[in-house]
């Protein structure tokens, strides 16, 4: 209930900077809307209503036409400010279930949804027109992204150990250097891997920290890696180990790895 209420509370804090941004946006949309027809705002609202129906007025969330939903609050006629609507739709409410839609729906839809919720609160839409600035990946890189995060592969996917573009588990350090080609990717050396002996067994490990009292390391016996904490002195380490990066990527074909490299170049490049 508290979370649901949290999504209701309009953020009354509005800085001077945010107000000026809104004014610029209002001017922008006014100018653009004058040309095609005065119905421009209505088109945005209609598109927003459609997008709202798909992304917001569903099952456990808000109700149709901004009414109260099964478990999320009413949005219509709430006296929300445009800053609050824009902020909440774009960035969500961290720590609750209200998502940051900026990250999940295309910009055109986002703008339309904001305009629609504004219209439900008696505000003339003030948002800029649809302009899809989402980074479009070339086909090969888009395929690579699918493969990198491929949940069908279970734990045997790159994202089990690598975080890229705010997704995946950061077991390994951030990918800064991208191998030149598939052959180089298959031959990646991992000198940081050691063999740990503890609790009467030995296993490949990636040491994260060695403190005075405790040591933290990833146990790489099988994916997913386990971050284990041992009292200092209870683990012995030996350089090198039987873990190979080539082993964990063996299930990907050369073509698939080529696509993954294209993806990494696209998202980590300039």
């Amino acid at each position, binding site marked *: *209930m*508290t*979370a*649901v209420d949290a999504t209701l509370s309009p953020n009354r804090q509005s800085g001077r900077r945010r107000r000026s941004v809104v004014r610029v946006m209002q001017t922008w949309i006014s100018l653009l809307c004058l040309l095609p027809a005065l119905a421009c705002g209505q088109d945005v609202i209609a598109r927003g209503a459609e997008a709202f*129906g*798909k*992304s917001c*007025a*569903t*099952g*456990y*969330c808000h*109700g*149709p036409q901004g*009414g*109260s*939903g*099964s*478990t*999320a609050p009413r949005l219509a006629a709430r006296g929300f400010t445009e800053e609050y609507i824009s902020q909440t739709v774009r960035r*969500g*409410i*961290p*720590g*609750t*279930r*209200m*998502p*940051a839609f900026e990250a*999940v729906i295309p910009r055109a839809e986002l703008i339309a949804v904001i305009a629609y919720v504004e219209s439900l609160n008696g505000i003339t839409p003030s948002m800029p027109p649809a302009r899809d600035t989402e980074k479009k990946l070339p086909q090969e890189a888009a395929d690579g992204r699918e493969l990198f*995060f491929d*949940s*069908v592969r*279970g*734990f045997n996917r790159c*994202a*089990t150990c690598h975080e890229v573009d*705010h*997704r*995946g*588990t950061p077991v390994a350090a951030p990918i800064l250097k991208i191998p030149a080609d598939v052959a180089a990717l298959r031959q990646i050396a991992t000198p940081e891997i050691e063999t740990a002996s503890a*609790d009467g067994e030995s296993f490949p490990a990636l040491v994260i920290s060695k403190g005075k009292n405790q040591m933290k390391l990833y*146990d790489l*016996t*099988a*994916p*997913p*890696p*386990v*971050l*284990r*904490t041992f009292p200092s002195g209870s683990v012995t380490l030996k350089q090198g180990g039987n873990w190979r990066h080539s082993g964990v990527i063996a299930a990907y074909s050369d073509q698939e790895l080529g696509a993954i490299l294209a993806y990494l170049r696209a998202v980590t490049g300039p």
Partner: protein
Amino acid sequence: MRTLLFLLCAGLAVAQDGAVRADWPYHGGSQLAWRYSSLDQINRANVAKLAPVWIFQTGDYEMGLQSTPIVLDGKLYLSTSRSQVFALDAASGRLIWQFKYPLPRVTVPYGPQNRGIAVGGGYVLLATYDDNLIAIDQNTGQETWRVALDDMRQCGCTITGAPLIVKDKVIVGGAGGDSAHRGYLTAVYIKTGRVAWRFYTIPGPGEKGHETWKGDSWKFGGGATWMTGSFDSSLNLVYWGIGNAAADNDAQGRFSGEGEGANLYTASVVALDADTGKLKWYHQEVPKDVWDFDSSYECVLLDREVRGQMRKLLVHINKGGYAFVLDRVTGEYVNGFPIVDNHNWTTGLTEDGKFVGRVEPVEGKPTLFCPSPLGGKSWNETAYSPRTGFLYTPTAEVCGEETVVHEDPHEGRNFIGGTWKFTNPPNGPAHSHLDAYDPVTGKRQWSYPYKYLLLASILATGGDLLFTGDPEGSFFALDAGSGTKLWSFQTGSGHRGSAVTYMVNGRQYVATPSGWGSLAAGAFPDLWPETSSFRGGSTLTVFALPEGTR
């Protein structure tokens, strides 16, 4: 008379013992999920004297306190919705340690919710809102290992249910069956944190049951495992309820029409080999679910006589408002019966347990369904008393208008395929009741009515008492034989968690979480506007008989 009743029941207790005593070691009390303690120091004769002895405030109000505490050797372990864990002296409430998990900085799918931890092998096992499983040293509160079981930013999934310890492993499910996501159960070795096995609730290519999915829909078909299962050590079988198929209301994209059942193993109960995670049997309660009728609730394991023959049974309630009685050795259907008065989505069950006369939601026009996607019962759990032989279940008499809206899956995003509006049943206001059932025949023995929904689990005790709480903050005791209210105490915030009982130094305690919140609580103001003023909270209140009065 009491002695005679006890002696009569003693024979049953030898055959099967799902009761707990001084401790409350598992989420459901024992691994059989009875939520029953044989402690009887607090009983019908003296419960009126029950009084609070200590109170603990967690400080974490988010989504209410939905947890079941675990009690072992005089220590009580409690988790909160945002994955905070506390170890307390169970007699005094003194804080022994606190495990501070980082609070969420991004959106948590469905909001952060936690219904309990597991304790075993020297560790407290915490499954976090962001899909990590963590072993915390039971004595020091220090982290020993953690493993990421998924990435909530990608899968749109989270973990809400308490893990279940089974021999040397801890088994944990996940929520997210209303997102485009493929559900699973994961077993992890307690000692090392290494994954032992994972059972996908939707078969992959080449596996039996895969043919019941159309095209690629199996990749995003739901089947979450968001509550806690049971374990029968004599059969070495783990039982778990599997959630709805996704998109919830729209089967057009996923129903293949091939094979037995539809969209396996969603809306089913599965029995898995505890060592390997291999499927032993399944029983699909709602083939081609289009109402969000999860089967994810608790599996109560009972040995009872059926037509003159002792049977190993499993009793399971579905969100569709029906209870199923299965043979837990084979999965064979034994009986089924409705637990709600308002049910219109089917005309009933055939003799072999198939729903007939189904009415399905359609596109473009709302249809009234009873029960609603809130369920004929929410996830708050039943109790079984071997003394009365009754199963005690809370119910929800709420209906919903549902409309199909076609949508395509996008991994991790909301994938409901419909809109809902919760409403009153056609013949009166929404309400609930706590009922006592013969769990085999389905005969209702008594009913305790309540004006809102009872959303806290039930605790049954050897003192022939039932304990539970209501959304208005009242924690109360009923006579397990008659349903008569014998005692109550106002805790200050609504109840969504699960009470437990235990004994330390010869004194019996009853502990209840309180603190209003959760998704179902969010549905209240539309049904009952006055409940919009209900306040959140997150408190554990512990009761005992005053010294010298027992």
